[in-house]
């Protein structure tokens, strides 16, 4: 019996043990996601990759593919929920794209474009989150953090440094730096760390290179995220 399931009517092959998101990515089918990264263990927290399997909703980054599953992803219902989640991420932080160096290369922004997010819809929180500019090479702008935990996972599992952590619970969850002072300068974090490369939004920024790529030539100016990320890159 062949290992396949259907995704929006399309037959998708999978290796036993693979998740739905992994198999879809290999087949070139994009499922929106923010906290998933192919090189890391899934976190399953952003819920953008939610799909409907045999009529029930679940995160496709943590759900193993099984023979004969009927998976729905690009439906009006699911995309409306994905859009609502994205809008909540926008109003909970301070996401001002015109002044953000990551604009045009930002997965949150590109995903919002993909989902046709025309407005944030909800009331803004406008939280007060001071930036950390203490490190000589890297700026931390917590205003844009979406709590995907990719930097936490990269620093802990790849760099072996454990520089970042998520602290607090529920709506008070926030990213912290594991140093007595709480400042990035007081850690052994360097630009060469994997954790410096994985931020999908504009929190971890290399200093002195902002806006180096002109508008029109940035990653998601050239192609929408659905075409750029379909391979799971």
């Amino acid at each position, binding site marked *: 019996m062949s290992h396949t399931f259907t995704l929006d009517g399309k037959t998708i092959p999978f290796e036993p043990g693979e998740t739905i998101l992994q198999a879809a990515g290999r087949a070139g089918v994009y499922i929106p996601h923010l906290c998933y990264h192919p090189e890391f263990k899934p976190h399953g927290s952003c819920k953008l990759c939610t799909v409907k399997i045999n009529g029930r909703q679940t995160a496709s980054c943590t759900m193993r593919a099984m023979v004969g599953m009927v998976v729905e992803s690009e439906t009006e219902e699911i995309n409306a929920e994905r859009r609502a989640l994205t809008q909540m991420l*926008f109003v909970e932080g301070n*996401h*001002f*794209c*015109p*002044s*953000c160096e990551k*604009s*045009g290369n930002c997965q949150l*922004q590109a995903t*919002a*474009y993909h989902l*046709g997010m*025309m*407005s*944030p*819809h909800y*009331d*803004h929180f*406008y*939280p*007060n989150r001071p930036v950390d500019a203490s490190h000589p090479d890297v700026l931390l702008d917590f205003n844009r953090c979406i709590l995907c935990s990719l930097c936490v996972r990269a620093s802990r599992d790849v760099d072996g440094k454990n520089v970042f952590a998520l602290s607090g619970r529920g709506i008070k969850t926030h990213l912290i730096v594991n140093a007595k002072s709480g400042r990035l300068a007081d850690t052994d974090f360097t630009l060469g760390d994997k954790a410096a490369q994985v931020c999908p939004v504009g929190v971890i920024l290399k200093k002195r290179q902002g806006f180096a790529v002109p*508008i029109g030539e940035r990653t998601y100016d050239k*192609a*929408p995220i659905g075409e750029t990320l379909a391979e799971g890159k």
Partner: protein
Amino acid sequence: MSDKKKLKVATTSLAGCFGCHMSFLDIDERLFTLLEHIEFDRSPLTDIKTVTPGTDIGIIEGGLCNAENVHVLREFRANCNILIAIGACAINGGLPAQRNHLPLTTILEEVYHTSPGLANGRIPNDPELPLPLNQVHPIHEVVKVDYFIPGCPPSGDAIWKVLTDLLAGREPELGHGLMHYD
């Protein structure tokens, strides 16, 4: 089309920089085509001061930073059938909202009083001046907004696309290339 009644369009800039209006003018010679189908009511382009009841489309640039902005926004909502938020500031507060994490008193003190070169400066308190709001807010937090054109500013092409979609009775859609938050 010529014997059809022209649609009335009103525009204003609240806590904005008029950049979105400049971008509107960037539709260039297409303005002539547009003017075959619409006429301007209250707008910086006409200098008409109040919105005529029954105006078809209201276009709002900028967010809400003071009481007068709220008053004008409510006048637009009360008199326009369709309200469009144009640009980052109308949609999420934009640049003026960068003050939102600072107490208003601190800002006024620094701008009018404690900054160097402002010896004995006083915080303006003329009854003619609209009172600032504690925080800057996007317009959808105060009134129902029907359509949004994001961008800082949105390109002339994006504005043209939305207006022509509406004139043709289609649901406006921007798509890749025209959809920008920056």
